[in-house]
């Protein structure tokens, strides 16, 4: 093993059990020392499995069917228990809720160092450093972790691992539940953890390894490993891996939008830009002319439907929930009108009141003050069944609702609760499964499906009740690029062809720009922007104020012609640059 490698895998083959499919086969790879390595690949493609090998959880904790060798700094990880290398290799798993052990912030950060037997006086100093790194030093340290927001919990887990001062830090999708500002803060934390510009002490891990579905995070890495079909499909610097659009698509990894656009514009692969800055330089040197006047004023082509009569009207809506100290106001003074056939993105940072507002729309919560009307009548005048028939709600995590033994039974649960039966019920279920493209899996056990498929089962269960409106709460979390695109295209098609009203909570600004003609931005419980999505993305100052981040193509437009309405999709950028060649 070379001294430049933090961890190496040689000829690794693994399956979780003798009857389970092989997840990785004959994998050879090296994690370079002193670099940020990002692992990308399709969901279910073995990324998390690979990560679990980097600190020896596989095979020392989960034995499975393992062959091959794993070495880190001269230690054989196949024979060393993970808790013996915890001081060297820190790991942040995907589900942050399940990794919080402490009963207070202090206890949480102290837990790792305590396990290592670090002296309490030294732990005190480490807590200060770790919380400063994770930007959590302004929060009351006695608070229980359960009282923190998602983004804060995620950063607390990182602080807990950082306090162990490992040489290598491994993170599994650390940004999937974070808002744009939270993601940026976390990435900057990781940069800081690496360079440790906190006074004195530990100098940060030399090496960071991270799994992500967000292509923009991969662009900022030093090294990328792309997994496909149980093996390493590509490995190298971002400039090499991320410009090969065909290989990325084959591995079901998102293609950087600027790569897609400039590829279509006829730029050769080696010159394709990964960042808006690089694209700006390319436009200047390669003689492209940027003319945004060709862009539509409203939504991108093929998005949005014509809206009809009023569906929801909210007036002065307020919601507060009690705590031991004083009530917390989650939603305040919200006036909103939503017409039939609308496609609305509900955005804002973690804790801004989006989920609470969406639950008020469904009647899962009753407003403390103000009124919500549905089809002109107060929401309270409908029975739960009447509401459920009109409005569907797709929760973030499909596993919070799947329970039946077959996909068909699962999908039939909603409509049968609403009184459909016999042939009518069967027809609805079949049609819904057809719509989400799951008919061949109708008799499968929902728990055996992939996350993307489970999400579609959940959607089918709602579609089968034939609602007028569906509220989606972060429906694409945990989906890979292909699953994500398929899911959103399906929702877009339902909106356009069936006139389904869509209200979607999301942190993914690419999704907002591409699919939602109207955006509603929330901040501290209030609606601070309600209008055309292109208008929202045309003002960089406003985006910064709401802690939102524009898609890359839009960021490029802000550089080229800040005063003009920007393109929202690759296709629009291509058009503004003179069309594909």
């Amino acid at each position, binding site marked *: 093993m070379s001294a430049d490698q933090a961890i190496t895998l040689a000829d690794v083959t693994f399956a979780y059990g003798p009857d389970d499919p092989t997840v990785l086969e004959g994998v050879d790879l090296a994690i370079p020392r002193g670099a940020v390595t990002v692992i990308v690949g399709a969901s279910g493609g073995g990324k998390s499995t690979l990560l679990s090998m980097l600190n020896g959880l596989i095979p020392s904790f989960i034995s499975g069917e393992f062959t091959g060798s794993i070495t880190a700094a001269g230690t054989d990880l196949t024979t060393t228990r993970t808790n013996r290398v915890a001081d060297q290799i*820190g790991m942040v798993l995907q589900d942050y809720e399940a990794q919080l052990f402490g009963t207070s912030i202090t206890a949480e950060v102290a837990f790792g160092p305590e396990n290592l037997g670090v002296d309490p006086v030294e732990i005190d100093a480490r807590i200060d450093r770790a919380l400063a790194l994770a930007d959590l030093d302004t929060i009351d340290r006695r608070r229980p972790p359960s009282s923190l927001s998602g983004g804060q919990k995620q950063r607390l887990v990182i602080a807990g691992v950082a306090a162990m001062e490992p040489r290598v830090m491994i993170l599994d999708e650390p940004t999937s539940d974070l808002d744009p500002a939270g993601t940026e803060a976390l990435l900057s934390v990781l940069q800081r953890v690496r360079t440790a510009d906190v006074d004195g002490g530990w100098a940060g891990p030399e090496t960071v390894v991270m799994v992500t579905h967000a292509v923009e995070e991969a662009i900022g890495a030093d090294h990328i490993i792309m997994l496909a079909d149980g093996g390493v499909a590509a490995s190298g610097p971002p400039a090499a891996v991320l410009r090969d659009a065909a290989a990325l698509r084959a591995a079901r990894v998102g293609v950087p939008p600027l790569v897609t656009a400039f590829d279509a514009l006829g730029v050769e692969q080696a010159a394709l830009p990964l960042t808006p800055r690089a694209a700006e330089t390319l436009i200047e040197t390669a003689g492209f002319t940027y003319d945004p006047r060709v862009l539509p004023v409203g939504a991108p082509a093929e998005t949005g439907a014509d809206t009809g009569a009023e569906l929801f009207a909210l007036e002065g809506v307020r919601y507060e929930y009690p705590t031991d100290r004083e009530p917390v106001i989650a939603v305040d003074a919200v006036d909103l009108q939503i017409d039939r056939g609308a496609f609305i993105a509900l955005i804002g940072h973690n804790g801004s009141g989006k989920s609470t507002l969406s639950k008020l729309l469904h009647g899962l919560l009753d407003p403390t003050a103000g009124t919500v009307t549905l089809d002109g009548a107060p929401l309270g005048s409908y029975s739960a069944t009447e509401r459920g028939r009109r409005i569907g709600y797709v929760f973030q995590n499909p*596993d919070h609702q799947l329970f039946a033994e077959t996909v068909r039974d699962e999908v039939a649960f909603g409509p049968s609760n609403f009184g459909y039966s016999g042939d009518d019920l069967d027809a609805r279920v079949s049609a819904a499964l057809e719509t989400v493209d799951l008919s061949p899996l109708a008799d499968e056990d929902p728990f055996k499906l992939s996350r993307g498929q489970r999400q579609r089962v959940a959607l089918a269960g709602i579609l089968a009740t034939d609602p007028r409106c569906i509220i989606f709460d972060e429906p694409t979390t945990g989906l890979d690029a292909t699953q994500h695109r398929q899911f959103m295209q399906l929702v877009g098609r339902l909106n356009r062809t069936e006139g389904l009203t869509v209200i979607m909570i999301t942190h993914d600004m690419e999704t907002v720009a591409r699919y939602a003609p109207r955006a509603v931005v929330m901040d501290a419980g209030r609606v601070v922007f309600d209008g055309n999505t292109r208008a929202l993305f045309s003002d960089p100052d406003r985006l910064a104020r709401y802690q939102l981040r524009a898609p890359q193509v839009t960021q490029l437009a802000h550089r080229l012609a800040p005063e003009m309405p920007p393109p929202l999709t690759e296709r629009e950028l291509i058009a503004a640059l003179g069309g594909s060649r």
Partner: protein
Amino acid sequence: MSQAYAPFVDRDTLVHRLDPRAKLVGISALFVLAYVFSNPVVIAVPALISLALVLSVGGYRNLRRVRVIVIALFVVGFVVWPVFLAPGGAVLLAVGPVILTEREVFIALGRSLRIVTFILGGLVFISTTTTEELVRGLRQLGVPYPICFAVGTALRLFPTFIGAAGTVRQAQAARGADLGGGSIRARLRGFIPLLIPVFMTAFRNIQTQSMALEARGFDPMGGRSFYGDLRFQRRDWALTLVSVGVMITATLAALGGFGRI
């Protein structure tokens, strides 16, 4: 929101500030008072003190949650005890074969008050002690660390699962699930769409948790250090001394015949 599920009441009262070990001794003194005497008039003293404490630390929320149990225990105790007791004193009630004497009523009332004191005292403790303090207190009292860790984890996971159950409930309600009403069989059937997702979530949680523990260097049997140990303050010593005094005095008085019926 999860705050509302946890029994700890986030306030800053004198009882909150006490060391959990001192608190335990203090509450034990109330229990001893309720236990060594059998005269309901005497037992009413610790019962009322406990009630006043629960209310003064903001524990009404917790009291409301267990009120059905408290009332049930009180009533059932009151009905069942006389069956096992020897009659004595004036007859208060005679309906057919049922004869209720003064002595029976007195003792039954005392027993019921005793149980209520135990519950109220427990409420005072859980309303004013964070899980962290409890776990540290247990460990500093000499309880082995793996047991303390298990207690702490269980208490910490509880609100997490209640939260998950809340989400599942909303998800199924949105699909028109009927969550209540009907025959017992219908109700049980109605629970399946709730139970399965909650169990699956819990199961996945535990899997992740055990891996995360391992990755954080946790070794239940290995050596470790302890950060932030609790220190006894002057008020903790004062409460402990007073409580021990009360326990001894009460025990001696009871042996001497005080508070007996």
